[in-house]
């Protein structure tokens, strides 16, 4: 692969060193576990959290004479992902063997795709807020087997091996070296995860290991030649990715500024120290002896197969983002926040459909998401359903309750549940718009506070005090607009 610089250096991202400015160049290889019932080449279950070695077939355990058979659903998932990344789908691809010895690799080789991957070049669009949009190139996506898991802490001088994961399908999604800051890298990972989750091709749960990133980092003078890269292996959170990149770039800059050179090597990030450390040098790198797997035929499908998958593709985050703006009039920022999680945007749309979109966005983002994140909950576990929240909005727009009361009502629904309309009835939360009733209260307040009446005639700004009094008397239920009008006319201001 030839490296092409597609970016214009952005001073904002420069890291200043003792000898001048530096720029990071980052590329990522993301391993995303394919969402599928069974493994890539065997019928074993992929269910997470089963007891060790319970999802293991003869094929997964590499028994003599066992043969792999491709799981077509994994192929469909890879093609769907390719389509979601606006990538070239290769109608003919090959499986190769990557040979190395490790106890959790029963075959002694991993079946992967080396020269001819199933998906070619694509693109991921990043919304960087005020910094605008940037397109990150995808080099390729290929299918491969996951390895098992070695467990070293169960016995004083033996290691245990769990093959539940052995043979589970992974998509390795390789970016071009187009990222230029840890913020971009984080945004890329998040966006990729969002796309995969929309597509339903990977659950994106980094903490469970179903999505992990190998991050290639190098530094250079802004816009200069690419430097020597180091690869940080198996980073399993967006936050760690940011930390690892920051640390690694700084480490490389320090070496270069001291007149040293960067050794191309594989490194590990330690979340405890926030540092990366050397795992193996280029010289220690394996010779994987790739060659086409003779047990498998070339993977071939036709345009109709791709078209069928394309047709059933869900709306993707970028399209949804634009539609939210056009259809509901939400701000681009709010649209970005909403589309980040499919469950969030689905919730939002359930609330906003046929209602005031801007109001819905405001409420969903500020009230609901705010409250959920405070409680450490996700949208799926929200005690207030989209139907309930929608019903609260209906009460506002029908003039039944004020915005302020709506917040109280939200609180009640959150803690106690129930039908908002009924709650308003039962608890007498209805807004008082009856001018007769309000006039009566206003009269009483004017009569009881002659001093204030004097003052407000000189300083109309004090009107708020009267409004407050009325609200106090009506427990906030008076229609604020009616209160204002009546007060102004009675006070003659």
């Amino acid at each position: 692969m030839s490296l092409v610089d597609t970016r214009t250096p952005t001073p904002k991202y420069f890291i200043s060193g003792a000898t001048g400015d530096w720029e990071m160049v980052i590329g990522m290889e993301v391993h995303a576990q394919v969402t599928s019932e069974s493994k890539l080449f065997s019928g074993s279950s992929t269910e997470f959290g089963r007891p060790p070695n319970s999802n293991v077939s003869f094929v997964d355990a590499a028994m003599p004479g066992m043969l792999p058979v491709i799981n077509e659903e994994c192929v469909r998932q890879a093609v769907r992902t390719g389509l979601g990344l606006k990538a070239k789908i290769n109608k003919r691809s090959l499986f190769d063997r990557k040979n190395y010895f490790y106890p959790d690799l029963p075959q002694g080789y991993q079946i992967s795709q080396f020269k001819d991957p199933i998906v070619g070049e694509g693109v991921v669009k990043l919304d960087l807020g005020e910094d605008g949009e940037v397109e990150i190139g995808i080099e390729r996506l290929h299918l491969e087997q996951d390895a098992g898991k070695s467990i070293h802490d169960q016995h004083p001088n033996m290691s245990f091996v769990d093959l539940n994961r052995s043979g589970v399908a992974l998509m390795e999604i390789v970016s071009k070296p187009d990222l230029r800051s840890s913020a971009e890298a984080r945004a890329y990972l998040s966006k990729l995860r969002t796309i995969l989750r929309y597509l339903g091709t990977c659950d994106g749960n980094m903490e469970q290991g179903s999505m992990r990133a190998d991050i290639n980092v190098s530094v250079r003078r802004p816009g200069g030649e690419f430097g020597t890269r180091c690869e940080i292996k198996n980073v399993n959170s967006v936050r760690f990715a940011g930390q690892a990149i920051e640390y690694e770039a700084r480490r490389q800059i320090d070496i270069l500024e001291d007149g040293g050179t960067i050794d191309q090597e594989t490194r590990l990030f330690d979340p405890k120290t926030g540092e990366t450390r050397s795992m193996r040098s280029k010289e220690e790198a394996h010779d994987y002896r790739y060659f086409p797997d003779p047990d498998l035929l070339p993977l071939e499908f036709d345009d109709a197969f791709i078209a069928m998958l394309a047709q059933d593709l869900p709306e993707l985050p970028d399209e949804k983002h634009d539609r939210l703006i056009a259809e509901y009039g939400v701000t681009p920022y709010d649209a970005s926040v909403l589309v980040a999680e499919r469950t969030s945007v689905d919730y939002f749309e359930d609330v906003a459909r046929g209602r005031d979109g801007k109001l819905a966005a405001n409420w969903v983002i500020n009230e609901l998401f705010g409250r959920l994140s405070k409680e450490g909950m996700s949208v799926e576990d929200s005690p207030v359903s989209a139907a309930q929240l929608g019903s609260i909005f209906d009460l506002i727009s029908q003039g039944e309750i004020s915005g302020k009361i709506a917040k109280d009502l939200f609180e009640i629904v959150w803690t106690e549940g129930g039908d908002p309309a009924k709650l308003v009835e039962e608890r007498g939360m209805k807004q008082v718009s009856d001018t007769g009733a309000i006039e009566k209260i206003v009269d009483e307040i004017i009569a009881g506070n002659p001093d204030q009446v004097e003052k407000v005639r000189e300083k109309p700004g004090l009107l708020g005090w009267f409004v407050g009094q009325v609200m106090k008397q009506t427990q906030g239920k008076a229609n604020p607009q009616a209160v204002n009008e009546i007060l102004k006319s009675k006070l003659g201001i």
Partner: protein
Amino acid sequence: MSDLTRLSLAALRDGLKAKEFTSVEATDAYLSAIEAANPKLNPYVAVTSDQARDMARASDEKLQKGKGGPLEGVPLGIKDLFATKGAHTQAASHILDHFLPEYESTITQQLWNHGAVMLGKLNMDEFAMGSSNETSYYGPVVNPWRAENSNKDLVPGGSSGGSAAATSAWLCAAATATDTGGSIRQPAAFTGTVGIKPTYGRCSRWGVVAFASSLDQAGPIARTVEDAAIMLQSMSGFDPKDSTSVDLAVPDFAAAVERGVKGVTIGVPKEYRMDGMPAEIEKLWTQGLEWLKAEGATVRDISLPHTKYALPAYYIVAPAEASSNLARYDGVKYGLRKTGKDITDMYEQTRAAGFGREVKRRVMIGTYVLSAGYYDAYYVRAQKVRTLIKRDFEQAFNDGIDAILTPATPSAAFGIADQDMAADPIKMYLNDVFTVTVNMAGLPGIAVPAGKDTNGLPLGLQLIGKPFDEETLFAAGRVIEKANGGGFEPKVWW
């Protein structure tokens, strides 16, 4: 009652159907014969007597009721490369010590479904790597044939030496075998038996321990062409568990045996006329062509120009795949484990102790030709050669050739512990010179006994067919079989 072991598979099958004798009788006859012969010939690495008798009894029950499959009650020997559930399956290697599979290979399962009885597991070259059956961890197999006036032990050929020797010496009605570069046809030729390697994809590889996946193909060794056809019938068929198996209907092979060769065009490749080819091989070849012509075949000279590159290319492709296929024998999961000071040491100790010399040699060759910097020069080039070899054959078939006749081997069986072969592995590899092209092209090939050398040892001819046209091979093979005058039975000395 005459000796049931001497019957052809077809005759045995018919006799069982006609209730002339029982499967238990036939099975016991074979088990006794094995007991007597095995200490001297060594074709069986495991005899599954109890299982054999159980299967025979079950077959007899069916046969009594007039039921049963096409091989009901027929006792067979199974090459140790086939996984047989709960029975010895070690590819004749030390590294698979005590390994007992929990599964049954597709082919053996089909045979049992058709009623066959398993007598035991047959010796072979370790992991099917060899041409003399001398690389087996279980010791060499001795050819039932001896040169006239000689007591010298000869090799039965390999890698399916146990299958060939057991079939030839009446220690099974027929045997399963496998062929990666000639491992069915060369031992068949050395023992006066019939061996067919079908088209790649005809038989499932599932449950057959892999040597070189793109070349490995199972097939039978039998005492007659008809028996081979009957065996292949039951071994063939599409298997969804093997991605390289081909979804094609299996023709009635036995029906093709007596079809004759009228109107068949036989190609004679000039490149197979090797320098220094013994006159008797040359003579045999010519004789074979005459027999075919006499039965109405047309004979035509053809050229397969890339033939000379086949053997070197084969010895790159096969070891390359083998080096990867054998990586799973690492002491971690099953079979032999030698303790080491760390994991790498454990691997090294285990593989050093578990693999024999020839296996190690090929694993090293394979690792070398796949390594960075050599891959293009060796592996990629060898694959290109392979394409050219395939094209040579396609060209011949497109030009109207129906089958190709060649010698099966450059010589008759040689002695055990042959000095020349031991000193130079290439000499051993040259045994496959006429057979490897067929594997490289994925074509079917049959070896049929055709004559004898000056010492009275059997010699075979090979017929190579179009993809999935095993029928023509059986028909043409039968013509040679009928013409060869018989006498392809060893004198019992064991």
